[in-house]
């Protein structure tokens, strides 16, 4: 199959299989349609021309990719726009989360916990560990 034909077929949905691309539609008329597209490509038509011919014959709804023009543009613009806006919001949220101070945050003065406290921690850890081990 020529590259032009492949490109044209890749831009079309099949009128003969619900939801499938013309590329993969196993139905008999789709095979014929693919053959005629191949023939057109061999005759020297460009892929866009072939696509327009097919859509003129079968209807606009078989276009697989919205055009980068008119309303069709919105299909392409919105998903990345949402991601970009989302990223902006995310950075804002991260900043605000970072700026805040915990109400009960202890200043790290570099001193270690006292031996007494350390002992309590070790005991608590051991108790927790034993509890976990049983499960």
């Amino acid at each position, binding site marked *: 199959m020529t590259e032009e034909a492949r490109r044209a077929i890749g831009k079309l949905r099949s009128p003969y299989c619900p939801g499938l691309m013309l590329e993969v539609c*196993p139905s008999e008329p789709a095979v014929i349609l693919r053959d005629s597209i191949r023939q057109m490509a061999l005759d020297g038509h460009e892929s866009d021309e072939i696509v327009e011919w097919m859509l003129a014959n079968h209807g606009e709804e078989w276009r697989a990719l919205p055009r980068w023009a008119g309303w069709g543009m919105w299909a392409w613009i919105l998903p990345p726009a*949402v991601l970009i806006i989302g990223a902006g919001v995310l950075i804002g949220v991260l900043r605000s989360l970072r700026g805040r101070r915990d109400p009960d945050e202890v200043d790290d003065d570099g001193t270690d916990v006292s031996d007494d406290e350390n002992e309590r921690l070790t005991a608590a850890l051991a108790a927790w560990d034993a509890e976990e081990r049983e499960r």
Partner: protein
Amino acid sequence: MTALGEVALWIALLLTIWGVGTAFIGARRGRGDLVLSSERSLHAIFLLVVLSAVMVVVAFLRNEFHYRYVAGYSNIELATHYKITALWAGHAGSLVFWVALLAFFASLVVRANRWKNRDLMPYVSATLHSVILFFLVVIIFTSNPFETLSFTPADGRGMNPQLQNFWMTAHPPTLYLGFTAFTIPFAFAIAALLSGRLDTRWITETRRWTLLAWFFLTIGIIMGMIWAYETLGWGGYWFWDPVENASVLPWLFGTAFLHSVMIQEKRGMLKSWNLFLVLGTFLLTIFATFLTRSGLIDSVHTFAQNLTISYVFLAYLTVLTIICTGLVWWRRDRLKSEHRLESFLSREAAFLLNNLLFVGAMFAIMWGTMFPLLTEGLLGQTIAVGPPFFDRVTIPIGLVLLALMGIGPVIAWRKASKRNLRRNFTLPTVMGLSVGLILWAAGVRHPYALLTFILGVFTLTTMGVEFWKGTRARARIEGEGAGPAFLHMMSRNRRRYGGYIVHIGLVIMFMGFAGSAYDVEEQAALEPGETMSVTSAWGHTFDLTYQATSAYPATNMTKLVASVRVQRNGRDVGILTAEQRAYRQRDETISVVGIRRAWNEDLYMIMAGIEDPNGVIQGTNPRPLVTFRVLVNPLVPWIWIGGILMAVGTLIAMWPRRGVPERPAPPRTVPVGKVPRRDERELAEIG
């Protein structure tokens, strides 16, 4: 007699109203007896709806064609096991099945929470009742499987042939289990909001149920892919069909929640975001049902649609959205973050980026799915959006997520240092790039495929290193050998390492997807004895010699089986068959593909057309011309292997902990205002 099923539905409907009322009044007035009554009502509803579903099945088994539903989806000759699965072959029955599963989970929740979360349970019960109420109203008033015809047809129309196979038996129940289970986290979220008890406890409960729902939904989606691959007969497994998309939307939201919930559990941050995700996931399951059922968008799933109910679902969605938003707004004071973010370079921040991508992907897919409908509604002209659109929009997001899977686990909570990251990423980067180089040298030029492999290997390496280092650290701290240390590490941190296994499965699956860039396809019309050849992307050649086609009568259909001798590089590797099945009752023909599986590729053969099929059936044409479509799909088996790994990993992550030491618990039912009975006293003392 089967009409008893409809009576059961009506009684269940009355009980849901009772259950909502008693739960609310019980919670508000402190009346434990009303709450108990409401909880019992959920058990009763479960039994009633199961009875109703059983009655539908019985009607199918007894060929009671005076029911419109039975007549529409079955026929006398239909095999018995398909008469059972016919319960979910059409819209009305599948809704009953849906409610039965929902009521099953509801009943399970009530049982599991007899001793805990008692202050939440009245509201959980009320929420579950209200959701069941909605579905029962939809069933009884718009799509009743017990609706009768004015006459009794001699035979039914039969089941859609594409549903008559194993995967279609397994795929809907699993998917429904996932969808319905997401109602439980939703109910807990609503309960937490209503009761104002928004501390750490509800989120723990919710996380477990979400994982369970996610498990079923994941398996359900993968089974759907297998079904599409093996029965739709075009060589692919995913085609961005609206209904497929609909099942992915809640999956993406649920996945985002499973990640961000860790931040809340560890750091008390993102409370309202997590609520948004839990509520959103449920709303998306309703949205998915709406898309599946409405038939507004044409799809391969058109066997289950009904236009009138789409408005009902839309109204329900709107009401739910308003209620959820209102509740979150009402409780916003209790949803403040408890801690601050210490560094942008931390696990927390990585999870947030992951959430952004999941939500972004969800939006992109939803937008693309709804776009034709929106343009039709607003402009009067449909602007179609096909599979390539979704590919272009989601693949980049998928690739970033793939990289993030490798980066995330290595970044420390709270604060990571750049030096450590550099050290930890050296080996994975080197591995990824060298695999990329090797593939480049081998001629792989497809940019996405190449990137998938580089990032995939990168991620797999970090995973491997994680397992290795975890084992080593455990061995060092506990002084154990490598084997026991590995096992103990896994069992002590099931959530983490189960999650890693899910990631590994997903990476392998992604690589399998990437293989589709190198699918090869040939088509030829052959006479017996003629040969066609296909050259795989791996370089070897398959020669397929068409032997013969024979016709077999079977129950409900006639099979035409074409057999082909397969040679790989000139060496015989066996016989492959492809079928066409002509179903008598529906007058429909479907093709059954022949697949020869190897570890690295599938040889996939479709009988695309046959000349003079009637001649073959009658025996007058023993040498028909058959058109074969043959594909060699590299790496497809990896997709299923990845799927199995994902399921195994999820099971590990959610495996329940053994015998949690319960605190002394009193008997649940206490006679109000009386001294507890003797046996109850003893029970309490033992505890």
